[in-house]
């Protein structure tokens, strides 16, 4: 008996060249207006980086529409963004103070840039004391507390945990390392590890409230290795430094390479755990059409965040931890997994719903990352042309 070969069907969201261009046109207009701020820069380097960044974003978006695939183009932008953010941030630190280490002066003057990872720890103290337990500036300056809160609230409402795949400037790092190997070296990960981000969230929220100190930032954040950290002036800071460097190497580099999963984002980040709850208030969701699904479990194997399980397949949706990266949507050979809008039937108008989500998420990514990408690019160009990034 001959076996019927199941050929991969072309995604229904694939569009012709002309149609793709027309669909991408509003994005081109929006990104041009917002990225340029209504002014074309006169300085050649700034003009070059703006043009390159603009073209990069819009080519990727066009390809996303034309090919009908999401993840590979999203990841290209997302990973580029993370690496250029690191380049931009570190060179800024060297330019401003000659090193990556945070001086006591900056802490005393409350000029430390505020990062979204602090947010969960600030909520209970803010509710009780109306103060933010972080040495940053409330308003004004670079990465002020209020501006990050506004961005977080906006991202939560518009994308839910899609922030982790379309917004977070750290997420691209472990996303990149998780794609290096063709096959995972460590295949089976105990599902109980998926509870670790929640445990860390609870621990840091309780200890931050009890001791009025952002304990995750002080003790656990691995991304201090690529941004800024307190200068080692005491035994306690030395211990903290050893911890964050070890966590960065293990969770962001080594384990993602070995498992082909986004280990830091999926199994450690407490902000991500909290952000999972915002998936409930967001219009967009990933859904599985049970009529089309043949239970091959390819999506379970491919999901980089362990958000697809056999139980969730039966329910027709991924777990709360879904970061809306689109990997499962692209991987499904039966096109059973789609981007959906809450309240609408799973089948029908799939392409329109996907486009609505892509417009939301990609626009957020483009606007949020454009300055960092442009600055990172200009630093690299300066390095090539002058031998120095500063």
């Amino acid at each position, binding site marked *: 008996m001959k076996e019927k070969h199941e050929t991969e069907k072309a995604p229904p969201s694939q569009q012709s060249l002309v149609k793709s261009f027309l669909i991408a046109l509003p994005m081109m207009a929006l990104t041009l207006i917002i990225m340029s701020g209504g002014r074309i820069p006169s300085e050649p380097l700034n003009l070059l980086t703006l043009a390159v960044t603009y073209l990069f974003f819009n080519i990727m978006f066009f390809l996303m529409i034309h090919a009908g695939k999401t993840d590979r183009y999203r990841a290209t932008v997302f990973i580029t963004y993370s690496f250029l953010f690191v380049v931009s941030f570190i060179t800024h630190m060297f330019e401003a103070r000659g090193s990556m280490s945070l001086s006591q002066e900056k802490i005393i003057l409350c000029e430390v840039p505020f990062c979204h990872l602090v947010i969960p720890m600030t909520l209970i103290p803010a509710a009780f004391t109306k103060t933010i337990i972080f040495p940053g500036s409330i308003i004004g300056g670079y990465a002020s507390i*209020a501006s990050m809160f506004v961005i977080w609230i906006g991202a939560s409402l518009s994308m839910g945990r899609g922030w982790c795949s379309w917004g977070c400037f750290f997420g691209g790092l472990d996303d990149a390392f998780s794609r290096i190997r063709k096959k995972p070296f460590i295949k089976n990960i105990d599902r109980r590890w998926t509870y670790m981000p929640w445990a860390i969230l609870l621990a840091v929220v309780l200890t931050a409230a009890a001791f009025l100190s952002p304990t995750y930032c002080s003790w656990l954040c691995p991304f201090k290795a690529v941004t800024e950290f307190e200068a080692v002036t005491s035994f306690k800071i030395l211990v903290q430094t050893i911890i964050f460097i070890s966590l960065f190497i293990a969770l962001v580099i080594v384990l993602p390479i070995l498992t082909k999963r986004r280990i830091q984002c999926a199994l450690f980040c407490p902000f991500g755990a909290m952000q999972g709850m915002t998936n409930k208030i967001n219009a967009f969701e990933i859904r599985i059409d049970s009529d089309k699904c043949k239970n091959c479990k390819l999506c379970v194997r491919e999901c980089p965040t362990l958000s697809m399980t056999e139980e969730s397949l039966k329910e027709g949706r991924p777990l709360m931890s879904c970061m809306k990266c689109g990997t499962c949507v692209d991987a499904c050979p039966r096109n059973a997994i789609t981007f959906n809008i809450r309240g609408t*039937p799973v089948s029908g108008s799939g392409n329109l719903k996907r486009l609505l989500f892509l417009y939301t998420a990609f626009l957020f990514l483009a606007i949020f990352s454009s300055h960092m990408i442009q600055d990172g690019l200009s630093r690299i160009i300066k390095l090539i042309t002058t031998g120095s990034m500063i």
Partner: protein
Amino acid sequence: MNSLKKISGYAWAIVCFSIVPVMFIGNHYFSARLVSATGVTVSPWYSGGEVIRTVNHGTYKTIIHRPVFDGLIGKREDGFIQVEWMPVTALPRVIEDKIDFNGDGKEDFTFRLDTAAGTGTLTAHSSSVIGMIRLVKVKDGWVTRIQLQNIP
């Protein structure tokens, strides 16, 4: 009912999309509104607390902040007080200040600051004063935090 859910869903999705450009364009405005609506400030554990007294010495001034013992609810068993020395025209080479932070007329500690060497010496006159946490050069001036214990 299904049609209503469908329309609501699409409307909600369009709102989600609209939030993105509005949020970025109006970030300054929304930030200012958020701060004024909530009244939040930076925790005194980081900002040093409110200034309670400024002593003018002619060429420089001594800025004394309130003692910080703030807990989540109530007061904690230990805290600190922040004292700053800022130039009006210039800081002298050696500053020696006697500080009374609780306003009882008795000096709680004396701080001797050598601005050239960047060192400070604390002499406690009260049992609530434990020691110097740090001394930091800040722009043109100096800031110190003195550890205190909350004696009832």
